[in-house]
Structures are given as C-alpha cells and as structure tokens.
C-alpha cells in the first residue's frame, strides 16, 4: 500500500491518537500492574469485541511487524479472523497463525502454549480491568485501595472460596500481584495461563477500551497468583490429553460433537495443536 492510495493513516488511528496511547503505554510499563487511564477512541467494532486491544495493537504496529490474533486460543474464529483482516487492510502488515513467526500477538482469553521470546509483544483484550470491581463498586474507593496497597478485601474473597468450596474456585481472571505491589486482573485468561505471566520474556500489554485503561507487565516482571500458604495456587486444566494431538500439558477446550452428549477435549491453542500433529504427534487410541 503506497501513501497515495491509502484510505487510512497507517494502522487506522491518527498519529496524535497513537502518540497518546504510546504515552499511556510508557507510563503503564513504568508502573507495572497500574491501570493507566487513556482516551479510548471509538473503533469500527462494538465495545467488548476488543477495542482496547485493537487500539494497543494499532499503536504498537510498525510496517515490518507480523501480526497474530487469537480468540480463546484459536486463530480461525470470527473475532480473530476479522481483526487480522482489519490490520492487513489498514496497515498492510503481514499476518500469521504461527506463534513463532509473530512479533505482535493480540489475544482474547489465552496465552499461547509456545514459549514467547523477548522480541514479541502480547496484547490482551480486557473487559474489566479492575480486579476489585465486584468487591467494592466505587471506583474512587478502589483507586484509593490500589494507592494504599489495601488488598485485605481481595484475600477475604479467596478466604470465602476456600471456606465454602475447599479451594479457590476462580477458573479465569485469577488475580495476581505484580512485582510485589499492584494487584492486577490478568484479563479472563484461564488460571492455567497465570504462570506464563511470571517473568515472561515478552512485553505484555493490557487494553480495556470501554473502561479506558491500559496496564502492562514489562519483560521479566515477577507475577504471583494470590493464594494462601496452606492452599497454594494451582494451575488447573481438564485432566486428560488432547483428543487430536495427545498433548498432556496444554489447555483444553471441551467440544460437543453430536446431539447425543458426545464430547471431545482438544487443545485450545490451534497453532500449537496443528504444529504437534504436523510433527507426527497423535492421540493414543481412546
């Protein structure tokens, strides 16, 4: 795409907006886990479909970047395909489904199974950035609680879970403490992915468009999932191998396959599963 026939500024957003977002990103990186306000723009998609993530991606993209977009781990779902096509059109960047080839990975609800590298940026779509939202509805008060590191209430929430169910039952959006300071919502990734946040070599950016917040984990940041000494955090997943590639260590989706209640468990990360099968891996006979 040449400047003459471009209908949009590179990556859709105007330069001033991108600069504003980058400033917010710099601040977010400087204060890991802190929710930095930013002037979120209207995007050509509804709130809740990843407007925060799309704005971050637009602000980070360079013409040489290779973009991967996943939705619940899959490259081939509506949201992922649309966002990839969107940036292919308005930025003319190369897109990929391979985690290894990508330089920017925008994600909804998953972190790829393939280990990330220092040359990659993860962009998370965040619906609710405030981990204390359902414990304390007043935003003025939650901001003060963050400022004073007053997180007893979050621990009370975990206590209630252990008291009622014998274990913390949060399966996703499991709260973490960043660099020993801010408590952060890791976005609705399954708690299976929480350990991947800890000391990750890749820069992790979180964008909440409707809520107008950006937060970040700089590379190699310490990220601890909140827990009790006698009820330590456990990354959980369905206790079986993938029905396609036989992987024992990847996060699984449950798929209903017929009207008779038949179901199969398959890797949620489609790229990981396809790579394994291409390399000859297969499920052992059921």
């Amino acid at each position, binding site marked *: 795409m040449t400047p003459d026939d471009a209908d949009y500024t590179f990556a859709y957003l105007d330069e001033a907006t991108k600069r504003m977002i980058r400033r917010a990103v710099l601040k977010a990186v400087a204060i890991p886990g802190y929710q930095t306000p930013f002037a979120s723009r209207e995007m050509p998609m509804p709130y809740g479909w990843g407007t925060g993530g799309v704005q971050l991606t637009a602000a980070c993209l360079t013409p040489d970047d290779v973009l991967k977009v996943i939705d619940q781990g899959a490259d081939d779902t509506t949201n992922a395909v649309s966002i990839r096509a969107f940036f292919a059109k308005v930025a003319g960047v190369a897109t990929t489904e391979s985690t290894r080839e990508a330089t920017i990975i925008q994600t909804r609800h998953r972190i790829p199974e393939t280990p990330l590298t220092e040359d990659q940026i993860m962009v998370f779509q965040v619906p609710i950035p405030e981990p204390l939202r359902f414990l304390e509805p007043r935003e003025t008060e939650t901001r*003060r609680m963050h400022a*004073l*590191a*007053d*997180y*007893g*209430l979050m*621990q*009370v929430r975990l*206590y*209630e879970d*252990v*008291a*009622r169910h014998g274990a913390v039952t949060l399966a996703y959006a499991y709260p973490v403490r960043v660099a020993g300071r801010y408590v952060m919502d890791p976005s609705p990734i399954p708690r299976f992915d929480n350990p991947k946040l800890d000391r990750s070599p890749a820069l992790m950016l979180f964008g909440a468009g409707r809520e107008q917040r950006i937060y970040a984990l700089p590379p190699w940041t310490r990220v601890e999932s909140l*827990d*009790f*000494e*006698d*009820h330590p955090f456990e990354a959980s997943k369905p206790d079986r191998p993938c029905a396609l590639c036989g992987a024992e260590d990847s996060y699984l989706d449950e798929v209903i396959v017929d009207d008779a209640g038949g179901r199969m468990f398959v890797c949620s990360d489609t790229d990981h599963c396809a790579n394994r099968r291409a390399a000859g891996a297969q499920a052992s006979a059921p």
Partner: protein
Amino acid sequence: MTVSTAEMAQARVRADAEARAPLLEVAGLTRRYGARIGCADIGFDLWPGEVLGVVGESGSGKSTLLACLAGHLAPDAGRVLWRDRDGRARDVLAIPEPERRLLARTDWAFVRQNPRDGLRMGVSAGGNIGERLMAGGARHYGRIRGAAADWLARVEIDAGRIDDTPRAFSGGMQQRLQIARNLVSGPRLVLMDEPTGGLDVSVQARLLDLLRGLVREMGLSAIVVTHDLAVARLLAHRLMVMKDGRVVETGLTDQVLDDPQHAYTQLLVSSALRL
C-alpha cells in the same frame, strides 16, 4: 491464641503504664457544620486501660466527637495526640492516609451502633473476623480460620455458624460479631458508638457482660458513646457529659451519676427510668 492474646494485652498495659503517659490527648477539638456546632472545645486525656464514657442526649455532639477522633471527620480546630507502640506522641490529624488506614485496622477499632455499617453483610462470619488479619498480611488459611473460630467462641457465637453470613444472625449476634471483627487484631484503642443501641434489654445485658469481660481481660482502652446511663455506669470508669456540643461535666462515673453538679446532668440522671 486466647491465652497469648490476653497475656500480650496485659504486658502491653504494663508497658503503657510504665510509660506514664496518656494514650490519647485531646485538646480544643472543634467541628462545625456551617453555622451550627457539632462539638466545640473538647479536651480530655485517655489513659491506658481506661474506659471513658461520653453521655448526652441525641444531637449533643457525641458521635461527631467520635468521628473526629477516628479520623472519619476532619475537625476545624484542635489537636489529637496518639501514643504509638513505640511510645512516641503522634498528631492523629497529621498522620498520612496510608498510616491512618494501617492504624485503623491494627491499633484502633470502631464499633458502630448499627452492625450493618460495621460488618460485610455478604461475607461469612469467619471472613468478617479474618479481614483485619488478612489486611495485616496473614496468608495462612488454617491459622486465620483458627483465630476466627477462637473469637466466635469468645463472643459466644456457636462455632458451627462460622460460614454463615451475618444476614442470618440476630441483631445481638451481629453486634457481637462486629466486636469480634474489631478486637481480633488486638487493638489498643476501641471507639464504640452506642454499642447496645437498638437491642432488647436481655440481649443488651449479655453484650455488656461480654464487653466488660473483654475490656478487663485485654486491658482495652475505650471511649464509649452512649445515651444510656446504665450502660455508662456498667462500662465506664470516667464520664464526660455533653450538651449542645460542649462538655458540661466530667468526673468518675459513680460520682457524676450519684452526685450530679451541672443542672443538665441532674436533669439527665433524674430522667432515667427506674423500675
């Protein structure tokens, strides 16, 4: 846990007494609401292990005074000095917010008249009691739960109710739970705003019994605001009578109640119902 808390409390009372300094020094405390006076020119010292009663009719400024002491309201004038654990005098009104919050969940306790204001109604009894511990950094579930069960027993609530929410509790149980939630961190100063208000008399009597026991056992220093002279007589060592935002009479509780000097105090004492 029970024994050690009591021992710790007694050791602390001794240490405080050795310091021979008041826990709280209040001077010239004034709070106005526009042209009206909330409380004016209040001054007193509270010594370690002492229970000060504040009595007066509604609107006399008792609750305003308490809110100013707790830092919930900013007074217009005056000084409040707090003796911290290291024996240093701190100006409460100048303590930065983070430290004030830390104090509010460790060294201070505030028991409200309506337990609904002082409890988290959607959180189990155990969680309510454990909150202060967890806010203070406790991360061992078993120990937190143990402390909660211990405190439920001390405030005479059946240990089987530990996972029930306060919604399922009677008014008297809610008030006892609020007291447990406040005292679990071993505070040095307890502020109580009408702790027995709105309870029927037999429940009041049990609560007063409990409070008296805890005050003695833990060596608590407390300020109890009440309009009920009988409560004041049972709990307080010393009384302060307030009228129209000012202190009109102070003295030992028995002395004030048996031989009131100020006309208003005389009226107050003679107005009390006797069976």
